[in-house]
Every structure is written in C-alpha cells, then in structure tokens.
C-alpha cells in the first residue's frame, strides 16, 4: 500500500511545525523547515510501516534539518534583533525565556524533550527518531526537564498559579 505524501503532510505538518518553532525559535524558519521535510519526503520512498514508525521517520528528517540549521547559524550567525521591551506581550517574554532555556540544553536532550512535549511522540517513537533506547529517552527527557525547571523558575511559579491540565493544553 503506497503512502500518499499529501496525506502525510496533512497528518503531520502541524506537529512538525510546532517542533520546529521551539527547536529554531523562529516562526518563519519553522515554516520553511516544515516544507523542507516534505520536500525531502517527496524525493524518497515513504516507508510502508505503522503510523508510529512513519512519524519517527519524519521526525528523524526534521531533526537532521534542525541540526543543519543550527550548524549554518553557527557558521554564519544572523544579527538578531530584540523587540522593544515595551512592545512585547508578557506571553512573548515567556516564549523568549523558554526558547533561551531550550537553547541552553544539549541538542539531543532538547530534541527528545520537544518531540515529547511539543510534538507528542512516545518514548518508542522518539527512540527511533534519535537512535536511542526508550530507557535512554526517559532519562534524557527527565534530565532536560530538570534543567529547564532550574532555568524557568519564575515562569513556572507564575504558571502554577493558573488552572492547568496534565496534557498541558489550555483549560
């Protein structure tokens, strides 16, 4: 049974986009990289496998693209502009803090964390995408969480005062 690239795009583009938004911290770049994933998919044979395996395969491509992007940024750093503090919304300040905390993590720890928290992948899928065992994924996710908790003490304390759901979706 051949897998239709359009159907794959429709099913996974949103979670890939969200992953890239946090992985690269720029909405426009995230959009471009999401397109790039499917450009690569269109040039290759899509594996005929269970949903989870296809998702892991897509995220493996996405991770490679994000790493390439980071390498390019290191070689040719772009000037970054910080928006005027008065013009920023409080939620944008939090976004900025989260992105900075994520950037301080090791690449692999950041990726496993984002694949779990933002893209909603299971440990097995993340393990396939990153070449790790599920136990290693569990350890790395926990380690990333502890590091982020340390970096984001104040936003976490603020968030704790608001209603929450275990899923992280807005109540």
């Amino acid at each position: 049974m051949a897998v239709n690239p359009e159907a794959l795009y429709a099913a996974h583009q949103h979670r890939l986009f969200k992953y890239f938004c946090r992985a690269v911290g720029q909405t426009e770049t995230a959009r471009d990289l999401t397109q790039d994933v499917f450009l690569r998919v269109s040039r290759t044979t899509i594996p005929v496998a269970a949903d989870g395996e296809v998702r892991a395969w897509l995220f493996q491509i996405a991770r490679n693209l994000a790493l390439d992007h980071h390498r390019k940024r290191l070689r040719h750093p772009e000037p970054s502009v910080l928006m005027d503090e008065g013009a920023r919304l409080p939620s944008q300040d939090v976004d900025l803090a989260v992105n900075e905390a994520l950037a301080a993590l090791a690449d692999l720890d950041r990726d496993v964390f984002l694949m779990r928290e933002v893209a909603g992948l299971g440990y097995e899928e993340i393990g396939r995408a990153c070449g790790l065992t599920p136990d290693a994924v569990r350890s790395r996710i926990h380690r990333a969480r502890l590091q982020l908790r340390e970096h984001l003490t104040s936003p976490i304390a603020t968030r704790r005062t608001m209603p929450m759901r275990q899923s992280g979706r807005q109540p």
Partner: protein
Amino acid sequence: MSDTHEVISAFLDDEPFNSSELAEALGEPAGRDLLIDLIALRHLAQTDGKEPLALRAQKPWRSSLRAIAAVAAVLVALVGGYLVGERRSDVAMSAAPPATRVVQVPAAWQDVTSGRMQ
C-alpha cells in the same frame, strides 16, 4: 532527585512506570512539587506556533532590497542603452550624417595638362 524521580516523568508522559516507585516519589513533598512544576513546564513549552516570538533573527530584507535595486538598475541600463542605440541607428540609415570637414576650393584654380608640369 533526578534518578529517583524519573518515574514522575514516565507517569506524566503516560509511559509504563512502576507504581510503588511512583508512590514513593509522590510520598515526598519534593516529588509532589516536581510533578506540579513539570506540568507547569509542559504548559510553558507548548506553543500553537501562531504567536510571533519576541527574539527573531532579522530577516535579510534590506540586502534583498539592495539586490533587487541592483538588478533593476542593470535592467534599466540595458533597456535604455538598447533604445538609445536603436534611435541612433535609425538616424544613420535615414539621413546622411552632417559633414565634419568642408574642403574649400582655392580661388586661383588652374587646369593642368597631364604630363607637362612646370
């Protein structure tokens, strides 16, 4: 805390976990605190991807504009040059060019018979 509380991460992620380990972890105030912090962190990490992020790399739109302006200038020069050249060649074909030098005939003009120079 990192190793003993991994079970909290597994529980939070709906992954298989050991219930007695979880009970032990949540029996401590630090474990309960961690669970709530990790849920708050989950809320912070999730993004709908619609909001413009505060820290953005400057898009190289200025350099793009410069490149477009340079291409436009070259195009204008080429088209202008072509049109000017076209006009000049029309003039050259339809009319004789004005004389650049006029040779005056001397006042004392003489016919000399060939072969008998004095």
